[in-house]
């Protein structure tokens, strides 16, 4: 199993090295190589789905003795939740290689950076200790910096710096938390043991637990992002190139929520119980605020970016409610949001390549000239809204059901988020796709070609699959959700 994990982790990096060392004049080969390279992690994830171990909660797979004199090890492990997120990363990377245009696919730096990003994200989801989690969490920034910096939009400099500074500011707290946890574990185990198994066996005092929870959660919440720390997100999404947005929304936002589920709650449960209500309130504000701001957007990419704030609010509400059902819902919603928003950003990228504008008012009546595109866009919008039978419904329903038992009033407010989602998505759809074609340039737009269909249809199929057969996904997150909710219950009982 350890060979498998290392292949999953290192193969994208290996691929990026191949791309970087290739001669410039063979640029037509970059896309096939990238597709092949990203096919391997995708295949490995599919294989892992069949492994019975992957349905369980977190298990260590392998440990590397990294810095002997301090006793620091790097541990790698896997659980059902990380497997789902790894799969999400793999499929989004693979499909974004399909979807990018020639301009991007013939650039070494672009393809290479995405593969490095793939490597770093895999590292986050596979890491089994705080130090490697932090390392990969920060290493994400390097490829994102170049992706946004070189291939970004007009205002890229501002957006990139803002994104970097926000994330680094958050990760400083994660770093201090890691050091603090390391020093505590040193005093009880005699070495700087930061792996998850050791940490779960250390009993932190209430004071330590609260401090550590705050340190870690603050850093992760910036990445989620939660209101009012979300302001980097719209800028970053709008300025990033399409593939960058897909991965940013689809995967990088999950890194924050994943960190909270993997580190903050299990190890510092007392802190979580202390502060969960604040997180819940902020999440609900984020749900409503994100949705209302999304209604007012005139740029379709910005609209989807704000919808992410709203959807990630649902995820955080589910996490903060902290019972089995809501946690399951939150993890499933993470996957859902990755698929749906990834697909929506991809679709926006397609229309941007054709018209070089993203203003909603520049479109209108597109379903006459691009019927296939309109159909898929409507399908993804429905998934995003949470129409029963599609994936969004499953996640949001479970979150609302679960959180109702903990926060009755808050989940009532959160339910309005679903209504508001219908308003912003459908209104945007109405303005862009229905009616007569008023602008002549929209008359002769090409509909989606085969390459574009191949890159977006798999996501739509998955949305439908999760929508009608949610127990498949649920079976992979069940153990993780159970372990976390049991811990929370245990501490709740202990405190009362």
């Amino acid at each position, binding site marked *: 199993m350890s060979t498998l994990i290392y292949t999953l982790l290192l193969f994208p990096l290996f691929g990026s090295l191949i791309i970087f060392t290739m001669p410039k004049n063979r640029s037509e080969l970059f896309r096939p190589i990238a597709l092949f390279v990203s096919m391997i992690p995708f295949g490995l994830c599919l294989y892992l789905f069949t492994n019975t171990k992957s349905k369980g909660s977190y298990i260590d797979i392998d440990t590397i003795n990294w810095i002997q004199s301090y006793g620091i090890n790097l541990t790698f492990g896997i659980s059902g939740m990380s497997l789902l997120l790894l799969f999400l990363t793999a499929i989004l990377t693979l499909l974004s290689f399909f979807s990018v245009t020639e301009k991007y696919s013939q650039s070494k730096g672009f393809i290479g950076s995405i593969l490095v990003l793939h490597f770093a994200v895999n590292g986050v989801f596979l890491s089994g200790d705080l130090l490697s989690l932090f390392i990969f969490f920060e*290493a994400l920034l*390097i490829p994102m910096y170049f992706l946004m910096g070189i291939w970004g939009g007009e205002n890229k400099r501002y957006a990139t710096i803002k994104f970097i500074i926000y994330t680094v500011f958050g990760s400083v707290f994660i770093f*201090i938390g890691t050091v603090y946890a390391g020093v505590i574990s040193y005093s009880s185990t005699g070495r700087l043991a930061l792996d998850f198994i050791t940490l779960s066996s250390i009993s932190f005092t209430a004071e330590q637990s609260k401090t550590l929870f705050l340190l870690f959660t603050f850093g992760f919440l910036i990445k989620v992002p939660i209101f009012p720390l979300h302001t980097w997100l719209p800028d970053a999404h709008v300025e990033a190139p399409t593939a960058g947005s897909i991965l940013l929304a689809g995967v990088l936002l999950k890194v924050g929520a994943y960190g909270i589920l993997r580190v903050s709650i299990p190890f510092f449960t007392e802190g979580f119980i202390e502060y969960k209500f604040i997180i819940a309130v902020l999440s609900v504000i984020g749900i409503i605020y994100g949705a209302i701001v999304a209604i007012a957007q005139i740029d379709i990419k910005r609209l989807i970016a704000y919808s992410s704030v709203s959807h990630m609010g649902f995820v955080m509400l589910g996490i903060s409610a902290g019972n089995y059902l809501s946690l399951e819902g939150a993890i499933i919603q993470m996957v859902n949001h990755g698929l749906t928003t990834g697909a929506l950003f991809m679709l926006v990228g397609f229309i941007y390549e054709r018209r070089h504008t993203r203003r909603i008012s520049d479109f209108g009546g597109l379903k006459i000239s691009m019927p296939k595109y309109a159909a898929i866009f409507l399908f993804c919008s429905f998934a995003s809204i949470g129409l029963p039978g599609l994936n969004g419904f499953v996640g949001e329903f479970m979150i609302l059901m679960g959180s109702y038992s903990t926060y009755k009033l808050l989940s009532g407010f959160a339910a309005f988020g679903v209504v508001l989602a219908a308003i912003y998505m459908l209104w945007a759809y109405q303005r862009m796709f229905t009616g007569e074609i008023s602008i002549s340039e929209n008359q002769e737009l090409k509909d989606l070609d085969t390459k574009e269909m191949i890159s977006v249809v798999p996501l739509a199929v998955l949305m439908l699959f999760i929508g009608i057969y949610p127990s498949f996904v649920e079976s992979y997150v069940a153990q993780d959700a159970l372990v976390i909710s049991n811990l929370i219950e245990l501490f709740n009982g202990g405190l009362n």
Partner: protein
Amino acid sequence: MSTIGDIIGFNLIVIGPTLVLVATALLLLFCTITIETSVFIKQSITLMGILATIFTVFLKFGLFFTDGVSSYFSEKILLDEFSLFGNVLISLILLFNFTSIWNTSAEVKDKTTEAIILTLMSASGFMLMIDAENFMMLFIGLEIGSISLYALAGINRGDLLSNEAALKYFLLGSLASCVLVYGVALIYISLSISGFYDTAIAISYIGPPNVPLTTFIGFLLLVVGLLFKVAAAPFQSWAPDVYQGSPTGYVGYMASVAKVASFLVLCRLCVVSLRFVIDNFDLFFVVVVIASIFIGSFFATVQSDLKRLIAYSGVIQSGFILSGIVSGVNGTSASIFYMTAYVIQLIGIFIIFTVISGRLSSNFSIENISGLFVENKFLTICFSIFMLGLAGIPLTSGFISKFILITNLWSYESYLLVVILMLSTVAGFYFYLRPIWIAAIEKSESPVEKITLSRSHVLSLSVLAFATIYFGLLPNSLINISRWVIQNYL
């Protein structure tokens, strides 16, 4: 029957590196003033000299493994882990700066050999400074090293900035030397001794509470003199001007060699001489560290000149290194790791600056470098690695050094310092990433001519960049070395 040589501990191997460097410098001087010698021969002599220095360092290792820690020349010269480590580091600094120094010397007309002679002389001084067992020897070494550096800063006599740099460096540097030597005098007045080990023994003998105030003031002044050399705030005011004004090819050497020597002496001072009374200096060091972080971060953020930016970043890094030195022996070993990693990145950056200095006609304002590396992928990658290393991003040695240092600080319970140091890294991401952006991402408006790299530059840049990544991925070897240096004091 032991000879007089045995009694005073006469041993040429111990001062071998210093002797070889001086001999090389004298040979070059001889060649310049007597026979017409081609540049190639002079370069070969220099290179042979540096290699011979490295060889004598090996001989010193041999001596150390047979004799252990021991002092020579009537307890003036010390052979211990610090001195060996410092010798190795300074020889490597010389080796890696060799090409830059020669390249720049070729541009400074008529003084081609002068610069290299001064470089070798200063290296010999700093070697002596690290080897010193006695505060007077320390002062002599420091002066031999520093005076050559003052001259090196001002070697470009036609350039006003270079003149300004040299004068500023000389005046402030001499003041610092005065402070240092006054400190040595005060220590000698109060304790009647001036050795590293002797003072420790004396302090433990009279008992830390009974140590006279003059001793403390003496040590304080000694430390201030050294802090000036490493450009820790509030003694940093010379650094930006000197970095900016001096010929670019020499700055990498000047900055790194003085830092390495002074920091190693500070380490030895803290773990040996002051080991029983180091707590009395806590407040002073904390103030210096915090001042360095704040002043460095603030000015680096608003800097528009690249060399000044690196100077202020050096102030911050000095704060980091100093914070480790004063927090216990483990912290000192973390600082040694940090310093080594930092020096590698610093030299790398200045090699790149030397390469591009011809294109910029010595104007290192940040707009001037826009689009400079877009065409040259190798320079972009190296520059990014060094800058990201300075910022401390994971997978580079900068991250490991920060992690070890912060962990030690936390276990030493300096929580305030941890928070301040970490917050400074956020500012660091702003000003370290900005040059990468401008040089590597932004397209230049005017066409830039292609930069061609000489083979030796490519080689040294590759080695330094590789070291930055290597110590970030597999830091074990360097950590073990840095722990070996302090092993006697654990």
